[in-house]
């Protein structure tokens, strides 16, 4: 069973899409992957082969994590025909609060570098972000204030609050365990863990495909041909293993590797040691968030209601859905995800600054929209939005690699956003 979104190939284009329709692959998603491939290869050629290196791709994955996490929540917000302009500001104020919590409050009770510091900081971030989101959701759903206004106000309020927490002072450094959440050397999981995660992911993909096939057969529904399922499984597993291989192909810098070897009692050989970064913790978190959000959006009643509200708010109401409470929860979830992203970006910067997350709202919204979320509501996928975040970040990092000036970067990103939405609207009109 698929998500409650348009995912089947249209019958009119059956001739060109017959292979795709047999595979039941979303043509839109394939288009996005193609666009991403073009961007990557293009930057690689222009940069003289430094874009498609394990090092750059690893950095790209870490840089994408924070926005990708928030984009998963923005999908649900936009699907309900709302918008959240305050996500960057919520990230900012939450980041400041957990900075103060772990640098000024907790050490007074636990001492510095206590193992509980990082978990408490994360829980505080999730709670603060979630509560802010729920509060804004309440204003929107129960008081009927348009979400644009509530979150525009929220943008100013929470950005101001971020400054207020320490009257503008930057807080650093973060707790050592907490820093792992931001990636970097501390947050790289190493080669073995990466292969184990990749193998587990492949196992889950195969089992999930098999179970869904068996279930449909047991009801006598039409299923994909067996070879199609096999092709899909092979591609998905290939992508997972390939990604793991790339992450593992990026070694720690020699000096860090040497310190690591000494700390673990391994002799430092003449030619140096090749110690893999492996997948970074923020990327693992982002992937897990993506999976959980996809599960919520497609397998849970809440997700079904979110899409129903977006498709036809009146119909949702008449079906007996508690649309207000659902809407409030959507914004609560959005805030909670901002809390998670606040942990990642604060840890990555190793500092809490009141400017953290500035303009993130625009990148998050752009990611969701580039990823196929319709601003008219009712349509969008979590995976698409995360891919959209990767496209945005690829453009950004690619231009940094090429030494493009910042103002020109903004011009390009802005133009690409408009272009992407135009192409998407053309595509939708054609299949309609």
């Amino acid at each position, binding site marked *: 069973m698929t998500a409650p979104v348009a995912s*089947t190939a249209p019958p009119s284009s059956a001739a060109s899409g017959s292979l795709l329709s047999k595979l039941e692959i979303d043509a839109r998603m394939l288009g996005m992957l193609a666009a991403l491939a073009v961007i990557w290869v293009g930057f690689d050629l222009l940069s003289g082969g430094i874009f498609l290196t394990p090092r750059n791709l690893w950095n790209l994955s870490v840089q994408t994590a924070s926005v990708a996490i928030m984009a998963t929540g923005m999908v649900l917000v936009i699907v309900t025909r709302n918008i959240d302009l305050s996500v960057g500001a919520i990230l900012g104020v939450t980041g400041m609060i957990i900075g103060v919590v772990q640098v000024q409050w907790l050490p007074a009770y636990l001492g510095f570098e206590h193992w509980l510091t990082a978990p408490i900081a994360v829980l505080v971030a999730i709670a603060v972000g979630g509560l802010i989101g729920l509060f804004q959701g309440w204003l929107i759903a129960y008081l009927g204030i348009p979400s644009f206004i509530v979150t525009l106000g929220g943008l100013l309020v929470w950005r101001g609050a971020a400054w207020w927490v320490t009257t503008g002072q930057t807080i650093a450094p973060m707790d050592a365990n907490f820093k792992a959440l931001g990636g970097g050397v501390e947050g790289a999981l190493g080669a073995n863990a990466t292969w184990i995660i990749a193998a587990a992911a492949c196992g889950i993909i195969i089992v999930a495909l098999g179970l869904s096939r068996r279930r*449909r057969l*047991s009801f006598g529904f039409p299923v994909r041909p067996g070879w199609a399922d096999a092709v899909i499984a092979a591609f998905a597993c290939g992508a997972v293993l390939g990604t793991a291989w790339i992450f593992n192909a990026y070694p720690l810098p020699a000096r860090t590797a040497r310190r690591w070897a000494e700390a673990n009692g391994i002799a430092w050989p003449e030619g140096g040691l090749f110690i893999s970064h492996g997948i970074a913790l923020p990327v693992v978190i982002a992937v897990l968030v993506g999976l959980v959000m996809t599960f919520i959006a497609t397998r*849970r009643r809440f997700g079904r209601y979110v*899409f*129903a509200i977006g498709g036809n708010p009146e*119909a949702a109401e008449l079906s*007996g859905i508690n649309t207000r409470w659902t809407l409030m929860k959507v914004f609560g979830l959005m805030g909670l995800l901002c809390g998670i992203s606040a942990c990642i970006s604060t840890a990555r910067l190793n500092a809490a600054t009141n400017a953290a997350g500035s303009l993130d709202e625009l990148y998050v919204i752009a990611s969701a929209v580039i990823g196929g979320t319709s601003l008219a509501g009712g349509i969008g996928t979590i995976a698409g939005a995360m891919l959209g975040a990767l496209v945005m970040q690829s453009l950004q990092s690619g231009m940094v690699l090429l030494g493009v000036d910042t103002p020109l970067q903004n011009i390009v990103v802005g133009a690409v956003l408009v272009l992407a939405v135009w192409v998407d609207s053309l595509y939708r009109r054609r299949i309609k």
Partner: protein
Amino acid sequence: MSTNGTTPLVEMRNISIAFGGIKAVDGVSVDLRPGEVVGLLGHNGAGKSTLIKILSGAYRPDAGEIYVNGQHADIATPRDAKRYGIETIYQTLALADNIDAAGNIFLGREVLTPYGTLDDATMEAETRKVMARLNPHFRRFKEPVKALSGGQRQSVAIARAIYFNARVLIMDEPTAALGPAETQQVADLVLQLKKEGIGIFLISHDIHDVFGLADRVSVMKNGKLVGSASVQDVTQDEVLGMIILGKCPPGATPGPGAS
């Protein structure tokens, strides 16, 4: 008003509701017995749709009571109405266009697996069963209902209303958007449901539709009830007179809106 002695399935007594000072429904009483089709007639804006939206839980009346099987019923939300077995097919169909047929039929009443996730396979299987009865040629189970034709969308809306063992069915302009063949299909369905003992409120502004199917008619004008009558006791012209002039003929029981 009564045509026989049984307890009404539904009785709405002296219902009133106002929107911003305008009385959309003003002291209207109607009732419905098992296996009976009652046509609710009137011009656009006469208050028919508002009256049935009160019964389906979309609006709360300012005054008046609703009785289901002779018992006082408190209907505050669409969910309450459904609990009393009152199902509605809205004029707009009230379908979520971006969701497939099964998702719409079970919207708000999803079947869950033991793990609390949506049991889409079971819902699709049930949808295939109920759609086989209503529209045997229906095949597009996996597509959002936006992609369906008017008649197919109508069958999804009807399937949603009858799947959950409705005892009272409200059909608001069920044939307004349909072609002749599909209109006949709906008419056949009404007769079949009537045989099963379901009471049906048929809202329409087309009196030919209603005269063919209804046992009784109630006519509204400017939010008030002009009168009610068995279809045998009045002619179509007389009912037209009720709709247009608010004039109650001798064969009908006059209401407060009769001039």
